[in-house]
């Protein structure tokens, strides 16, 4: 390892682990740091993966945003370091590129069946 400063990777790298828990991609969501108030995409966080779990730190103040640890009993997820995560409209749904678009027919509300 070259230096302590550069031990981290981007929040992007947690996408696989987080996809085990969340239905939509967390790394494209905007999160607010509970310590300094910075609002950034989770993908921009500094991610430390050398320990037994994953630690994401704020790219601005290095406050711990998220901790994820796999232990025998299950998975611990601590997100106290963020006041919120905001998933953009549309974005969260299409980030996984779910193949060909579905075609909907817009025929209005279903007609009430006459009795």
């Amino acid at each position, binding site marked *: *390892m*070259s*230096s302590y400063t*550069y*031990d*981290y*990777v*981007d*929040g*992007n*790298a947690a*996408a*696989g682990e987080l*996809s085990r828990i969340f239905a939509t*991609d967390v*790394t*494209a969501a905007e999160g607010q740091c509970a310590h300094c108030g910075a609002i950034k*995409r*989770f*993908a*921009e966080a500094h991610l430390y*993966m*050398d320990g037994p779990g994953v630690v994401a730190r704020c790219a601005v103040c290095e406050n711990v945003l998220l901790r994820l640890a796999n232990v025998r009993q299950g998975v611990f997820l601590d997100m106290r370091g963020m006041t919120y995560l905001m998933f953009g409209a549309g*974005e*969260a749904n299409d*980030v*996984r*590129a*779910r*193949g*060909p678009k579905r075609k909907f027919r817009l025929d209005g509300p279903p007609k009430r069946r006459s009795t």
Partner: protein
Amino acid sequence: MWRVGTVVALHDETATARTVRLEVPDWPGHLAGQHVDVRLTASDGYSAVRSYSIASAPNSKGRVELTVERLPNGEVSPYLTQELAAGDRLELRGPIGGWFVWRADQNEPIQLIAGGSGIVPLMAMIRSRISVGGTAPFRLLYSVREPGAVFYPDELQALSNKDNSVTATYAYTRATPKDWPRPTGRIDAALITSATWPSKLGPTCYVCGPTSFVERVAGFLASQGNSPDKIRTERFGPTGDRK
């Protein structure tokens, strides 16, 4: 959710890097810039997971290409680059990541900056733009050790020969081709100024490489007036060993 892909082709890019083409029957499609996690499991149950960027453009055929650089003390990359054979099966999770991506509806100028094997997700963006016939102007600045370490050299050369395609600039850090105008050296502020889009054009910049490389380049881009929101980065750690 883990899917199973079958290796259908292998291609050496350099002495230490190999492209693995997989067919994944239930592949949901991907965006240029996304990655996958690859899981290898030994007969005693021990397993190792590593992330690799997807090199291929989005396609509807369930085809995924990964280019893997072999790391001297790596646990997974020596297997993928030396032992894996056509017909072998790999477990994949993905596609993953929704931030470091280029979408075909982006029309602004695109600045790609790669350090070493950081070219892989950027190549997916270039291939994606070519395959959709996009008009977004692309520039690539590629920092690489020596000419023999360039990934996809013929394809990049062919693209730069076409007037409407991708302009590539190379920065060699250890050895240059013969009669190369710029001496060996890392990307510096002057090269960023001369080889990348001016910030006033509002380019989106994608920077991928080892962490120290990305730090430095992102700093240059910001100091030249690029907005932090327009600089997207993917760092893969101090040694380039992606975990």
